């Protein structure tokens, strides 16, 4: 069996969780004009959404670019254009921004690797439908519906160095050596928050993986069995390439979610968070509350670019692993 053939299949029909592929009229294949004329009133339907979106979303997004080249403090009427000065400062002379970028990337790396791996593992174990698997899926999914502030408070207690559940449990079983200051440990704090993020969202991504796994045609496994494939080979040559589009979705979603982990950081690290827990989204907010509107806007543009860059790189990486 060649995976080449498989990847062709995959690109032919990317799974969409809720849309049945039944009918999908495209612009080109519409019946000619006249057969069913577009009722003019139809144009009114998108109008409220489009109007709200332009005024309160699209224009503000464009304005962010305008602000980004100024030193506006958000209060005074007067401000200066500083050209690309804000970006220059950010690149060369802003330790807070560099620290936040590093923390964001550390956080992202841990969450993407652990969460993707764990959600796929759990999905593989729970892909068959039964009473027991449904109950477990429902339990695993539960943390995803809680607010991040709630999740943060749950884990604040787990991680509390003196009274926390983890250190107490380690104390009870006599493993004092493993006790930790958790969030108090400057160099490791961001990783503990990353674990909390994984705890909160693994179940959600597991469900996406289960949907993907259930779409793999049985026959592929049967023919793999005929070829004498073992468990690992079945996974490597059937499941993994067939699940690649889902993996791309899972990773892309996890990435955006990780960059946005604003609430979790504020809940666990305080507002504003201490340096060891500052990530890009909290940094932009801190710059903004510090009345540096122009500079915060510039940061937010770099933030968008970083997300876009990481997403493109990931797409490539996922494609590469599909090859044998």
């Amino acid at each position, binding site marked *: 069996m060649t995976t080449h053939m498989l990847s062709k299949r995959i690109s032919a029909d*990317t799974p969409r969780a*809720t*849309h049945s592929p039944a*009918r*999908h009229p495209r*612009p080109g294949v*519409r019946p000619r004009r006249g057969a*069913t004329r*577009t*009722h003019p*009133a*139809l144009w009114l339907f*998108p109008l*409220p*959404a489009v109007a*709200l*979106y332009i005024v*309160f*979303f*699209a224009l*503000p*997004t464009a*304005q*962010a670019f305008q*602000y980004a080249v100024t030193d506006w403090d*958000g209060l005074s009427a007067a401000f200066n254009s500083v050209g690309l000065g804000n970006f220059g400062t950010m690149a060369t002379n802003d330790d807070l921004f560099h620290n936040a970028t590093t923390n964001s990337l550390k956080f992202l790396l841990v969450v993407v690797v652990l969460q993707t791996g764990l959600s796929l593992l759990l999905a593989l*174990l729970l892909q068959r439908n039964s009473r027991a698997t449904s109950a*477990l899926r429902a*339990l*695993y999914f*539960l*943390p995803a*519906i*809680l*607010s*991040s*502030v*709630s999740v943060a*408070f*749950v884990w604040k*207690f787990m991680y509390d160095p003196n*009274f926390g*559940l983890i250190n107490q449990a380690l104390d009870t079983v006599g493993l004092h050596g493993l006790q930790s200051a958790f969030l108090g440990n400057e160099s490791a704090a961001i990783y503990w928050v990353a674990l909390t993020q994984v*705890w909160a969202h693994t179940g*959600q991504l597991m469900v*996406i993986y289960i949907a993907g796994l259930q779409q793999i045609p049985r026959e592929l496994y049967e023919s793999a069995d005929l070829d004498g494939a073992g468990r690992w080979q079945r996974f490597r040559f059937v499941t993994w390439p067939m699940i690649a589009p889902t993996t791309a979705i899972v990773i*892309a979603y996890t990435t*955006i979610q990780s960059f*946005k982990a*604003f*609430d979790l950081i504020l*809940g666990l690290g*305080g*507002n504003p968070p201490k340096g060891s827990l500052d990530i890009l*989204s909290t940094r*932009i907010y801190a710059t903004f509350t510090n009345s540096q*509107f122009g500079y*915060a806007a510039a940061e*937010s*543009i770099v933030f968008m670019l970083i997300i876009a860059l990481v997403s493109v790189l990931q797409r490539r990486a996922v494609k590469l692993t599909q090859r044998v």
Partner: protein
Amino acid sequence: MTSLSRRVILGIYALLVAVPLIVVVTGTFKTTKQLFSSPFGLPSDLAPGNFRTVLTDASMGHSFANSVIVTGSAVLLTLLIGSLASYGLARIPGRLGWLIYGFLVLGMAVPAQANMIPQYVLFQRLGLLDSLTGLILIEIVATMPVAIFIMTGFMRTLPRELYEAGSVDGANPWRTYLSIVLPVSLPSLAATAIFLFVIQWNDLLYPLLFIHDPSKRTLPLALLNFQGEYLTNYPLLFTGVVIASAPIVIAYVFLQRYFVAGMTAGSVKG
């Protein structure tokens, strides 16, 4: 993988999820001392003292009402405005329809941090800061792209005959929308509603930006402020968590299918 190791992995993960949640729920009936000395033990009595403290002294009851008002209005209005747009976009033929659709859903790729500053300035000028109306408006705007993405995706899969059935009877598009498309789209609307409910109920960013008046706080913002007030009084923090999460967890118990469908559709923004 043997069935034993499968069971062990699934069991361990179930404990990892359940134990912290059980400790939090039972912790709401404990004092700090009881929680620290026996975090896993059942509470000795079900005294509602913590709930009274949190709901009245910390005025979380008030924040709860604000959250109900903001989320309730924002979910309904996003559904209404979004479903109207989705219906129009699913029926308008040609490139222009797709272009408008693309323009609207492009918003999903823009992180909130990218436009929140100009939005703040705009809302300040319009006098919409520190107002629940302003909060409702920004929640609608922020979730509109993904709502339209989910609902248009569904309505485009509806057979053309369904839309045309109406026009043969001489029904105008409005009638078709109300009496044919909306009823048929109910499962998709329900999933979208749940998705919006989870996002908007849990949102912290916009309340944090736009609300300074303590009497206008929504639950996540009120909860965040506990941090300073109650520092390590975990039973009170836990009580706040339980109050803030109760509506969503109760809804989850009864509407689990829609939660999974909605939150999956919302994340598969390919």
